[in-house]
C-alpha cells in the first residue's frame, strides 16, 4: 500500500521523465519532419510525403500530450486538494484517480464515481486520440508503400 493511498497523485518521476522526453522529442521530430517534407518535394514520391506526414503527426501527438503533462508540473498537494474539492461536492471526496492514458486527474467520490478535476485542457485527450490514430495509420502506410511501388 502506498503511503498516500487513497490520495496518491501521478507518479512524479514518470511525469518528470515524460516532460523531459516530450521537450526533447517534439522539436527533434518537428525538425526532422520538416526536413523530410523538403526532401519529399524534391523526390515527389508518395512514400516520402507519407513519411514526412507521419513524422510530423508523431511530433504533434507528443507535443500535445506533453503540453497536457506540463499542466501537472506545478500541480502539488495543495493544488490537487483544491482542484478536487472544487470538482466534488463537500464531504464526498474519497480519493484521487490519476491516469496517464487518457491523461487525467480524477477525483473519486463516495458513491464510487470519478469526476475529472479539469486540470488537463479538455482538448488534449481527444486531440491526442485523433493524432495517435493518424500517426499509426500514416506510419503503417509508409511501411507498406515500398511494396506497392515495386508492383
Amino acid at each position: 500500500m502506498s503511503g498516500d493511498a487513497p490520495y496518491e497523485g501521478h507518479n512524479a518521476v514518470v511525469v518528470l521523465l515524460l516532460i523531459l522526453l516530450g521537450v526533447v522529442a517534439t522539436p527533434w521530430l518537428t525538425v526532422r519532419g520538416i526536413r523530410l517534407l523538403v526532401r519529399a518535394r524534391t523526390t515527389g514520391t508518395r512514400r516520402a510525403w507519407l513519411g514526412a506526414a507521419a513524422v510530423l503527426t508523431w511530433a504533434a501527438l507528443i507535443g500535445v500530450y506533453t503540453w497536457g503533462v506540463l499542466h501537472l508540473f506545478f500541480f502539488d498537494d495543495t493544488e490537487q486538494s483544491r482542484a478536487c474539492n472544487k470538482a466534488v461536492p463537500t464531504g464526498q471526496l474519497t480519493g484521487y484517480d490519476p491516469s496517464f492514458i487518457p491523461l487525467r486527474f480524477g477525483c473519486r467520490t463516495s458513491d464510487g464515481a470519478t469526476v475529472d478535476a479539469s486540470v488537463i485542457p479538455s482538448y488534449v485527450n481527444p486531440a491526442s486520440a485523433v493524432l495517435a490514430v493518424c500517426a499509426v495509420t500514416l506510419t503503417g502506410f509508409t511501411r507498406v508503400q515500398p511494396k506497392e511501388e515495386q508492383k
Partner: protein
Amino acid sequence: MADEMVRRAQTFVNTAYAGKLGIDRVPETGVTGWTTMFALTRALQYELGITALSDTFGPTTLNTLQTKYPRLNSGTVPSENFCRIIQSGLYCKGYDGGEIDGKYNERVQASMTRLKQDMGVDFAFPGSDLTPKVFKGLLNMDAYITVNGGSDAIRAVQRWLNGEFVNRRDFNIIPCDGHHSRDVAKSMLYAVQFTIGMADGVANGVFGPGTQAGLRDHTLDVGSSGTWVQLFSGGMVLNQRPVSFVSTFTSGLSSAVSQFQSFAKLPVTGRGDFSTWASLLVSYGDQARKGEACDGVTRITPARATALKAEGIKYIGRYLTNASTTSLPEKAIQSGELQTIADNGLRCFPIYQTFGRGAEDFSYPLGRAAAQAAINAALDHGFKPGTRIFFAVDFDALDQDVTNSVLPHFKGIQDAIADDGGRFAIGVYGPRNVCTRVSEAGHATASFVSDMSSGFSGNFGYPLPENWAYDQIVTRTVGSGAGAIEIDNNIASGRDTGQGSFNAPRPSKPDGRLADDVIESMQIDVGKFMQSLGYPLDGGTRSYQHWKCFQSAVVDHDALITQLSNRYNMRKALIQTSCYWEMRHIEPLDEAAWATVIAAYATTGEYIRDTSTGIGKQRAVTLVGAWNHCLMAGYTDGRRILDVNNDDDKYSIWKEAYDSEEFALTSVAMIHNWDIDGKPGGDDSSPALRRPSLDYTDTEIYEVLRRYQGPRVEPALSEAKKRLGLYYVMEKYNSISRNM
C-alpha cells in the same frame, strides 16, 4: 460455485419479468445470492398483484399470500410462472426444483416435504403444500441444514423453535444452520414471551418488564420438565455451554448450570433462576446485580470514592486520554485522582479510546499510533509496568469490520507494545464478538465486554468471551450529595484487577533537548510507523530517505526546535511532525518546479508560480500570512511585514524557506501559531483554538496538524490522522527526554 439450475432460474426471472420488477437484470452467474432472491421476491409480489414492489418479503407479501394462497400445491398454484418462482427458489436453496417447467410436480412436492423437515415445521405444516411462512423462508439466504461447521445441538434448538412457534403471528422461520445469531437470539425472546402467555402483538422480542416478571415465576430445578426446560437448555446450548437440548432438568444439566453460573459470576445455585435466564437471553443479563467494578467519565473525588466503596466497588475503569475537554471535561483521569483511588483502597484499570468511532479509524498504523498514545498517557499518569490497558472498540463493528479493520488495528497495538519492551499488557473493550475475535487472534489477554449495548450486532447472539475480565451491564448513579456519581456498573471476573499503587504522575513539563540515548530508538520507531503507513525507509521514488528527513526535521536543529517549543508553549512534536511529514513528501518533480521558479525569477524578476518549497513544503502566501500574523500579534519580531501581492516579497521569503532549514522549521511554528489563531486572512475558516498549551487534547493536536495540511476538507481530514499517529511516536521520545 456455479450451478446450472440456478443459472436457469436467473434466466427465467430475467426473461419472464424483463422491465417489470423495477430492478436491473439479475447477473446469470449460476451463483445464488441476495440479488437473485430479491428478484424472485419481486416476481412473487408481481404475481400477487402487489403494485409497490420491494426487495423485502414483508407483512404485505405475507398477508397477501395468506389471503389468496394459504396452501399452495398442484391444484392451487395460480399460474406456471408462479410455480416457476417456487421451483427457482428451491434450486437457489439447493433443493431439487423439478425443472423450471411451471408444474408443482412430484419432485417439487418431495423437495417441499424435505425443506419443511429441515426447517423443523413438518409437524406444524404436514405434507407437501407450500405455506406463506415457508415461502418467506424459501426466498432468503438462510440455510436450513448445518453449514460452515455449525453445531448439530444448536440446529436442534433452531428446528424446535420453528416447529413450536411458527404458527404465532410474529414468529418467522429462523435459519437451522447450527449457528447462533441475532435472529435466533430474538426468536428465543419471542419463544419465552409466547410461553409466558403473551398474546400476538404483545410479544415483541424485547427483554422488558413483562418478560422479566414471567421468568421470575419460572425458576427451574432438577426434576422440572416441559417447554420451559427446553427453552432453558436451548439457551444454554446457544451460549455454547456443553449440554444437550433436553426437556427434563436433570442433575447433569444442573451441574452444567453451576459451571455457567460460576463462569459468568452469577450466584451458583445449579438452578434455572432469573439471573441465569437473563444471562442466557440478553448480553447485559440481570441488571439488578451489583458488580465489583465500574467505569465512568467523572473524576473520582474522596467523597465519590467513599460512595463507590460503600457500593462494593473495588475496580474503577478510567480513560487515559480525552479527545475533547468540552463535552466530557472529566472523562480522562484528572490530576491527583489515581492517588485518591489508591488512598481509598480502590484499584484502577486504564482504558484507551482511540481517536474516532468508526471502522475507518481502525487500521494497523492507527493501532500502532493508539498504542503509542496510550503508553505515553499511562506513563504520564503514573501507571506501573504490568498494567493492562483496555483499548476500546466503541462502535457496532460488524464481523467484516472486525476482520478488515479491528484485527489489524490490534495487531498494530500488539506490535507497538512489543516494540516498547512489553511494559504494558493489552485488553480489549468492546462488544462480545470483537473481544472474542481479538483475543482468539492473540492480540489481547482480557476482555472488557460492553454488554450494556445489547442491541449491538456484536453482542446479540454471541456468548460471553472466555477471557472476560469486566462485564458492563448497567448505568446507575450511586452515592449522594458530593459523593454522587454516575457509573457504568461492571461485573468483575477477577481476571484483571487493575492497579492499586501508582508512580508519581509525570508533570506537564516544558520540552527540553532530546536525550542522546533516545535518538536511535526514536529514528527506528518513526521509521517503523511510516513503514506501517506505506512509506518505505529508502523513500521510494521520493527525494529523501527516512534517515535524512529524521536528521533534518528532528536531530540537526533540536536546539532551535526546543527553543521554539519553549517560546510558544507548543510541544516539540508538533513542529517535528509537520516538518518530517512534509519533507518525506518532497518529490523530484517538486525540486524541478522549484528550480524553474528560481530560474524564472533570476531571468524575468517575476515569481511565476507559488509552490510548496523547503523541508516544510511551505508556500509563499502561507509564509507571508503566518509571519505577518505573528509579527502583528507580537509573537515574534525582527522582520518586516511583507506584501502578499508583491512578487519580490513573496519570492524572498519563499527562497529563504527553500535555502534554510532553520527558517523552514521556524516557519512551521509560525504557521502553527497562525492556524491556531484561526488563520485570519488565510484559506481556512476554522475557528481559533486556545493558545498553544502543553496539555493540548487529542482534538486540538489533530486540528493543528490538520490545519498545517490544508482546509477542513479531504484529504487533510484523513491525512491528519496519520500525522497524529506520527505525533504520538515523536512525543513518546520527547516525553522520555524531558522526564529524564
